[in-house]
């Protein structure tokens, strides 16, 4: 038997861990098929496209970079991070280390 309030708390802890930050619009293109699916998925999840895409960015952007580095035979030291501030560099380093581990584990399974 699961404890409803405990589970809800855990879910909300994960959901609301992001802090309010200054944001700005970014436009991009999606293939019709993907666009249609995105609209449908957002409707099902009852969230807007911005939230859905931000969740993917948050969870997968650095992992995508780890995949790129792995398949290109490059590593963190090969990246040009001169346009990032110290905080952003630390974030990138930390997340990239975790993503590389995750990638290594997924390859082993």
């Amino acid at each position: 038997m699961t404890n409803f309030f405990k589970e809800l708390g855990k879910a909300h802890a994960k959901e609301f861990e992001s802090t309010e930050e200054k944001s700005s619009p970014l436009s991009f293109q999606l293939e019709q098929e993907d666009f249609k699916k995105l609209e449908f998925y957002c409707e099902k999840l009852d969230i807007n496209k911005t939230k859905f895409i931000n969740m993917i960015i948050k969870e997968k952007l650095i992992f995508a970079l780890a995949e790129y580095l792995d398949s290109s035979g490059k590593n963190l030291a090969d990246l040009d991070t001169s346009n990032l501030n110290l905080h952003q560099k630390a974030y990138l380093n930390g997340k990239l280390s975790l993503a590389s581990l995750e990638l290594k584990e997924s390859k082993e399974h």
Partner: protein
Amino acid sequence: MINRHKDLDAVIKIFLKNRNSDEENLNFRDIDELNELIEFIGLAESMHLELLMAEPNEDQIDSFNEAYTLSIDNLSSFFTMGKTANLLKESKDSKGLSVKISEFQKQILEAIASNLSISRTKLLQELVSTYLDSAYYTYLIGKHHKSQNYIDINALIRELREDAIILKSPFHVIRALFRMRDLDPMFNEEFNKEFNSIKSMENEND
């Protein structure tokens, strides 16, 4: 850059290792083999030796082999250029959308895109289309997860079938089960069932 004379031995050793070969098995009277070695030395000169010495991973070996197998007259670099052009081509059948992202993430996105030599919008487009389905499938797993060891797979599949009708996508269910099949043996079982049912339907149509 490497010093050709000083590092030639090392380069040859790496070449042999990449070919899973040894000196005894090499036959330089075979002109193709010699050409291959000359080309490899050229490659070594344009790269840092440490990069070549690094253990190549499976993806790199695959793309290296693919480029060699599918190129005419061993012009593998042109094959690679073609592959890149294909990856970067813009689809005409696309729709624009605008989303709000934090300045922090925007700058990280910018830095990553620049390191990958692609635009920020291309990076975002590929990121979303790569993980769009996985995100939704994961949501469904969470939705039908009843307790630590139990996912109501029947309810999940029922929902996927309803989705498939709305999306007019007959392969929506099998695509989802294919992605989920490693999570639990029951998903794998359902995937096999779905696969066999599609196959028998195809056979009937034939």
